[in-house]
């Protein structure tokens, strides 16, 4: 099912009397989600991603704008008529019901022509349980399950009625690091097997990048960029998107362009860029550094973190916004830990320029 959001806006009345006007949680969203894809809504806390999810589920009514499922306008439709499956952050499993009863609950609500016989229900429940691999735990109560198992039950409950759209609210935030890795693969697998258009909300960029077909980066109720994860990572539209994606985070320097030369401090980084003279932000991905004795950028070395496969060189620079510059270097490189200075060459495709005022990315050629 294709989903289209058209100028979707949600305002909440302001509780803080000192500030005039409403709080705009979701501001004029327009985008299209292709059928059968897995979408990650990504942004820092309070950026409106959960509100967007609630608007899609029908639990909240938009202030303005429209939502289409396929060709049907569902904006005015209440939650129960939309046919969405929703998995809550805390799973919201009914504690007094067994796993089987929990998964069966949505089926028992069906009325009229959709009503199922007991056998059909049992069959569907088992099918959903097998899909998420919890068919051995059917008679347990939720409090007898681990977090990961509860998560699966919640997904099975959302899937059992074959929703047109599956919505997941921070599906992995309650799991430990190992389980998180495993579960996100699982979500991807389940989504592929069922082919249900799935939208999930997360503040963890790694999570979103790793399993999504498309990611939507949001901040303060505004969509900043929509695209394939790699595309967004390689071509961030503005400084916020560049900063938000990637671990360790991107290193941001204050720089300037003068006579087609790009400066960070006194160092000339690139000597022929086709950009007009102005102040810019120079953002360099950690993997964009190449260790070289006569490299273009000199930094004050503070330490080296060994991570096995590669090493992370930690240094400082007076023009850098970050407290420490982190550069990821192949472990084969030797770093003289005693040295005060370290010099890098830079990979041009990992260096982005952003306008100082608008913070938009500036396309440049060497």
């Amino acid at each position, binding site marked *: 099912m294709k989903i289209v959001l058209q100028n979707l806006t949600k305002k909440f009345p302001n509780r803080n009397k000192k500030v005039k006007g409403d709080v705009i949680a979701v501001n004029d969203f327009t985008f299209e989600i292709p059928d059968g894809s897995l979408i990650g809504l990504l942004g820092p806390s309070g950026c409106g991603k959960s509100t967007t999810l609630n608007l899609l*589920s*029908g*639990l909240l009514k938009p202030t303005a704008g429209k939502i289409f499922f396929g060709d049907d306008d569902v904006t005015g439709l209440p*939650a*129960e*008529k939309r046919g*969405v*499956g*929703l998995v*809550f952050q*805390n799973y*919201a499993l*009914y*504690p*007094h019901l067994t796993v089987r009863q929990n998964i069966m*609950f*949505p089926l*028992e*609500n*069906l009325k009229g022509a959709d009503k199922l016989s007991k056998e059909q229900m049992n069959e569907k429940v088992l099918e959903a349980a097998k899909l998420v691999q919890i068919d051995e735990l059917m008679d347990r109560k939720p409090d007898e399950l681990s977090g990961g198992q509860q998560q699966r039950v919640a997904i099975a*409950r959302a899937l059992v*009625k074959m929703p047109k759209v599956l919505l997941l609210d921070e599906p992995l935030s309650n799991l430990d690091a190992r389980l998180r890795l495993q579960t996100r693969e699982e979500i991807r697998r389940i989504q592929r097997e069922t082919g249900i258009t799935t939208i999930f909300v997360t503040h963890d960029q790694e999570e979103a990048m790793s399993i999504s077909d498309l990611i939507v980066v949001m901040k303060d109720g505004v969509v900043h960029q929509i695209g394939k994860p790699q595309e967004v990572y390689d071509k961030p539209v503005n400084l916020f998107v560049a900063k938000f994606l990637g671990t360790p985070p991107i290193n941001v320097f204050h720089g300037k362009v003068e006579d087609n030369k790009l400066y960070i401090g006194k160092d000339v980084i690139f000597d022929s860029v086709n950009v007009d003279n102005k102040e810019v932000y120079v953002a360099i991905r950690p993997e964009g550094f190449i260790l070289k004795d006569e490299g273009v950028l000199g930094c004050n070395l503070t330490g080296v973190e060994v991570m096995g496969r590669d090493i992370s060189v930690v240094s400082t620079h007076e023009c850098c916004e970050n407290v420490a510059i982190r550069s990821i270097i192949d472990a084969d490189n030797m770093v003289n830990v005693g040295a005060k200075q370290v010099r890098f060459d830079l990979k041009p495709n990992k260096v982005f320029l952003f306008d100082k005022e608008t913070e938009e990315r500036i396309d440049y050629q060497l």
Partner: protein
Amino acid sequence: MEKRNAKAWLYLVPAILFLGFFMVYPLIDVFIYSFEEGYNSASQTFFGVGTYNYSYVLHDPYFLQALKNTFILVIITVPLSTGIALLISVGLSSIKPLRNLYQTVYFLPYVTNTLAVGLVFMILFKKTAYSDGLINMLINWFGGNSVDFIDGPYWAKMFVLCFYTIWVVMPFKILILTSALASVNEEYYKAAQVDGTSKFRIFRKITLPMISPTLFYLVITGFIGAFKAYSDAVALFGTNLNAAEMNTIVGYIYDMLYGDSGGYPSYASAAAIILFTIVLTITCINLLISKKHVHY
């Protein structure tokens, strides 16, 4: 290890002394009195030991009347008051405007003095030389005949007592139930809503099980409270409850100790032990049932 035990006992001394003196000792004493025939508290003497006191009490028509009254009261008021309180609480939680006002209004009987409330009920129900009471005026208005609720037929008096009891116990139950309802996580309702659950099914399948521990707490304490009913009957029918056929078990015990026919601590003790046995049995049954139906 032993040293720490001694310390623990030392800390417990005040509580043990207090409870022992004012709770355990009297309890044992009552139990002993109930087997001592013709005990006289002034001279501290008795004729013999045996079960005569029990046999007397169980054959006393006043006690049987009190037993019957108490049982009727319990069976009618506990389910009714809990049910109505649940209805009102659910209603209260589903409205937004004026909720606080309604909560206050429903809570008023709880802070009002029992005897003052009794007076109000007198005005509602009592027949005097000047009027037949407010309720009778209503009955007359609908074309019925006046009923003497305070000195009239048994069923009328019982109706007033039950009505009064329900009205008095309701505020506490509403208070407890509204807070229980408020503590149910909103997400369960949202999840049910997304799944297209009907309002009635949400109530039956989610709300009720979620508040079932509170509900059973109210039923159990309701049973115990109703078995101990006394002051309500006094407020309505005066102190001579035996004559009004409206005595309760606790009233009977009181009468046996201090009433006009009083001065029989042995009979009072026997009646008290019988009441204790009944309450214990019913509470045990309640707990057994609740184990099956209360979740968590």
